[in-house]
């Protein structure tokens, strides 16, 4: 077997890291060592050489031991003009990252300006002039900061993944490297920031010796908030895959609102048992290595959609280059409003559902905090889009923080969605997998779960925690003999179950549809999420649009009133507003395009707010059926046919008519109005076309003259659509 390093590192990588890596022990050697050694001792935090290093910290790493050493490692940067460090305020150029004293500038600045600032040298360079940078006075060496060295790839940055002490007393760490844009295959892109780094999926073990000191790599939000952190601040938004040379956004960056929680998660993991955890980690690493080594033989390759293959196959997905439109685009107010109105953009707080949240919190707390922890059930119902699932999830998130603070007993949480199961029985498998991590068939899972909940046997070695089971779309679990529901609601009644079931569905009377033995086990605890009224909808929309000036006040109110009158569905209200914002945006961009191409006029300045008209159009889009439009634009014969149907409806009072009869009526209408006599087969074709659009309901065309037809929309709609038809004025006689 080849060594781990060379396998991880494809030959083509531009970085010379593989050849000049800091002293890494031969992996096979370490492994052997691990087997022989009694124990390595792992640390979460380590004081070494005057600094405190923690798992998850970012550090500078020396490139090699014999690198030209600037003995003094300056913590602070020198001014580019006077080459003194000085304590007075310095300003950083956004282009070359050079630091300047405010007083050294020409003309001197009094305070740090808002927004981007570029030094005069860069400005001049951009204009194409030759620039002579001021040189330091004789005898003074130009010192470089660690940041500069890193960005010119004389230093490395890495994230500490784990720290340990070898039995022989040396300190080691496993690190995950960062790369600078120049070291990727794509090279530095125009949109890359000066201080940007990429996190790689390249790990190695290095000695503590080679660590220089701390640096701070931040995600975009932290980076935006950071202002006075010194020179060692870097920006990292993307992960770089050294094997596939592709980029991907960091997952924790993506769900921005879960940041705090992600942090918690990590704490959880490490609080367990750091030793076994890191052992697992390295096993996983070995696993990858093994996978890579067998990669050349395609027979061993796993299919991406199979269970095992998923972990590896998805590495391939990633961009070869980060598209510019993502980074260089500055959103306008309208665009920001649109993104806030997205259904994915979960709000920080949930307005208008405080009462329900309290009730759910009370329910769960009551169930968990009791000493015995009796099982309980709660049934939540309400029309779609009233925030049922979201409320429950928010409550559980809040409880999680309480658990972390030690105020509550820890519990486990399983979420199942009835509509995402391929069959109702699969729920056993999903629950068991969530509890134990093993995958078995549903019958076996049912047996184990039965034992677990009714007899209190344990999964794994740890003590059974109370379990909260959230079942979304409960009605989908309804089988013929309802055994699935029976089992699920039977478990909480067992004395040792410690199971809490929360069921969510749309219909209010679902428990009444169950067999009596199930509804009696389900208990009577129910919670209704009523549809939102217009004030609540308005509050929801406004809470999302806080600080963005894109909507007229009455426009929001209009939208929420409309939706509240129809359904009270928050999703729909948000969608209508988003749609309206989109329409306004579209109008604006068309305007910009036309004015650019025609007159080169400057855009009419001022606010472009989303007004009533946009909302009206969006509401119309959502609630209006398009049939009238189609009737108006349909062909001449189909109009005549519709009119004849309405005529016949009024005459006979029967809504159904056979094709033969209809055809005779049409032909008589045509002849009395001096129209061309349509052929029978043409009429049949027209009838079938209308039937396809469901403007009329008709049987299949093969029945020919015996085909029965019927209008699908009220006759008044047809009359409205065809009354003022300019091409066939005589139609109005028959409507």
């Amino acid at each position, binding site marked *: 077997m080849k060594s781990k390093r060379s396998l991880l590192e494809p030959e083509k990588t531009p970085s010379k890291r593989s050849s000049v890596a800091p002293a890494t022990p031969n992996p096979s050697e370490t492994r052997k060592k691990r087997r022989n050694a009694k124990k390595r001792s792992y640390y979460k935090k380590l004081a070494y050489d005057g600094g405190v290093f923690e798992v998850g910290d970012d550090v500078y790493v020396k490139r090699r031991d014999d690198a030209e050493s600037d003995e003094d490692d300056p913590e602070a940067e020198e001014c580019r003009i006077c080459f003194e460090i000085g304590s007075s305020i310095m300003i950083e150029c956004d282009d070359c990252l050079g630091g300047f004293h405010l007083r050294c500038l020409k003309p001197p600045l009094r305070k740090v300006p808002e927004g981007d600032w570029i030094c005069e040298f860069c400005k001049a360079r951009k204009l194409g002039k030759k620039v002579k940078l001021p040189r330091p006075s004789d005898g003074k060496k130009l010192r470089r900061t660690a940041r500069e060295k890193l960005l010119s790839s004389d230093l490395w940055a890495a994230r500490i993944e784990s720290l340990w002490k070898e039995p022989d007393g040396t300190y080691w760490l496993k690190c995950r490297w960062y790369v600078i844009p120049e070291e990727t295959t794509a090279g530095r892109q125009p949109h890359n920031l000066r201080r940007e780094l990429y996190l790689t999926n390249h790990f190695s073990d290095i000695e503590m010796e080679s660590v220089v000191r701390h640096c701070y790599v931040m995600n975009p939000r932290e980076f935006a908030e950071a202002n006075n952190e010194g020179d060692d601040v870097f920006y990292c938004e993307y992960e770089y895959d050294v094997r596939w040379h592709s980029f991907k956004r960091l997952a924790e960056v*993506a769900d921005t609102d879960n940041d705090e929680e992600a942090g918690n998660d990590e704490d959880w993991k490490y609080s367990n048992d750091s030793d076994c955890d890191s052992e697992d980690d390295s096993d996983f690493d070995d696993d990858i290595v093994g996978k890579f080594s067998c990669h050349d033989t395609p027979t061993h390759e796993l299919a991406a959609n199979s269970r095992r293959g998923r972990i590896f196959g998805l590495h391939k997905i990633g961009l070869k280059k980060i598209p510019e439109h993502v980074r260089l685009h500055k959103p306008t107010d309208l665009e920001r409003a649109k993104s806030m109105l997205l*259904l994915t953009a979960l709000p920080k707080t949930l307005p208008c559902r405080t009462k329900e949240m309290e009730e759910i919190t009370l329910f769960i707390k009551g169930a968990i905090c009791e000493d015995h922890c009796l099982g309980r059930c709660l049934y939540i119902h309400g029309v779609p889009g009233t925030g049922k699932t979201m409320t429950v999830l928010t409550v559980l998130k809040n409880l999680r923080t309480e658990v972390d603070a030690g105020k509550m007993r820890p519990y486990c949480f399983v979420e199942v969605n009835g509509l995402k199961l391929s069959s109702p029985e699969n729920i056993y498998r999903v629950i068991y997998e969530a509890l134990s991590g093993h995958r078995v068939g549903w019958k076996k899972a049912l047996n184990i779960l039965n034992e677990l909940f009714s007899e209190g046997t344990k999964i794994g070695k740890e003590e059974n925690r109370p379990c909260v089971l959230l079942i979304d779309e409960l009605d989908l679990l309804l089988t013929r003999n309802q055994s699935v529901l029976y089992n699920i609601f039977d478990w909480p009644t067992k004395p040792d179950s410690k199971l809490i079931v929360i069921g969510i569905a749309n219909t209010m009377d679902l428990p009444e549809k169950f067999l009596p033995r199930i509804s009696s086990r389900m208990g009577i605890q129910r919670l209704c999420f009523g549809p939102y009224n217009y004030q609540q909808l308005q509050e929801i929309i406004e809470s999302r649009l806080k600080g963005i000036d894109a909507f007229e006040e009455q426009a929001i109110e209009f939208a929420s009133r409309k939706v509240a009158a129809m359904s009270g569905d928050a999703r729909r209200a948000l969608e209508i507003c988003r749609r309206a914002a989109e329409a306004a945006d579209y109008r604006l961009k068309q305007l910009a395009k036309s004015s650019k191409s025609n007159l080169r006029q400057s855009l009419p300045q001022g606010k472009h707010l989303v007004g009533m008209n946009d909302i009206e159009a969006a509401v119309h889009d959502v609630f209006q059926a398009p049939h009238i439009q189609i009737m108006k634009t349909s062909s001449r014969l189909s109009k005549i046919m519709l009119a004849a149907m309405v005529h016949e409806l009024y005459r006979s009072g029967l809504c159904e008519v056979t094709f033969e009869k209809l055809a005779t009526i049409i032909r008589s209408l045509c002849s009395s109005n001096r129209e061309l006599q349509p052929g029978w087969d043409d009429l049949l074709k027209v009838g079938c076309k209308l039937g396809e659009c469901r403007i009329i309901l008709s049987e299949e065309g093969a029945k020919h003259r015996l085909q029965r037809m019927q209008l699908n929309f009220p006759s008044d709609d047809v009359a409205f659509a065809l009354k003022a038809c300019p091409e066939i004025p005589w139609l109005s006689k028959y409507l």
Partner: protein
Amino acid sequence: MASEKALDCLRRRLCDSSFVYSAFKSTPAGNYSKLKFLISNTITEACNNSVLLLGPRGCGKGAVVDMILEELKDEFPEIISVVRLNGLLHSDDNFAVKEIARQLCMEHKLLFSKMASSDDNSQFMIDMLRECGLAHKMIIFVLEEFDLFTQGKQRLLYSLLDAMQTLTSQSVVIGISCRLDADQLLEKRVRSRFSHRKLLFTPLSTEDMQRLLEHLLYLPKNLSLPSKYVKEFNSNVNNILGDKKFKEILDVLSSVDNTISNICRFLYHAISWMHFESGLLTLDGFKNALSCMQRQPMLDKLQGASILEFYILVCMNRLGSREQNSFNFNSIMKEYKAIQDAYKTSDNYSWSVCLRAFEHLIERELISFLDNRMRSLSIEYRPVRLLLSSQELHQGLKSNSFCPAILLKLLNHESYR
């Protein structure tokens, strides 16, 4: 030579849907620019969207989507991956998820396993949506015959639309349907997740039709054709388009079906009648094309029928007009014998010959069995029905020169009954 080339060029254009629909690219209120704005905005703003394209068949729903996807693939290389499903093929949820997994694997050059369970496949789909979202990649789901996906529990639509509002993914679901009430077919929890964007594709109006004809028929200048010929051709086309008779032809055509695909079919017929020596289109060509488009298949079927077959049809019609709803071969034969006895025509055939003629009519679907239930019964006892109306039969008899006069009388006059 030049005319051949011109014909070639015209034909190629008519078959190329993206060229046909590019006539309506520039209008800002058109569906093309709206849909394109929607999708490209979704890409640049990294969000999710769902849209439903509705309209009768032949109005260019699919063609516009294809065109936009092609252009966007050029505009944003590597970013877009398209998954296409058709309701006729993939209306089964498990199979649809498998197909999605297969297409995603193909697109991203991953290995696909046929053996994976549907749970695995749907998990794979969710994972892919997430991973692609992280990599700024976009997945476009095109669901043709959208209405057929709404049969059953709608698990596919639910999981797609639910993933779109819970994950940080970038995807667009485009549903294409000719049923105008397609969004009403969605279950309410699915409908609540659907974003209710609807684009309506309507058939051509008269002005649009004119524009389309000009767009399709004028020869381009830059083709390697002699410019004199191109000029002549175009002025000729201009004359034809301005002709009153041509307008009448067009009116007749569009009164039945005014969709774009129908017009294209008509033009394809018409240019095949091009006058070869001069290389110009003629009005007669358009007339001929119109008659090709106006075939009446029922009457055509009657054209070749034999006298005996006409007798049987007339007998059936007489039985039907006597409010006798259900009849089979035997009762038809009774009527036939009665006619033969009363009028002593020369067309008196034996029972087995008549049965053969009867079977022939069934094969040609001029008559059909009432139901498929009594298959075990022999043909002469199974109830049948007539698919022709009496007017059609009358027209057919009249146009047939061999038809004996007595048949027409039998069909129409009360006294002969």
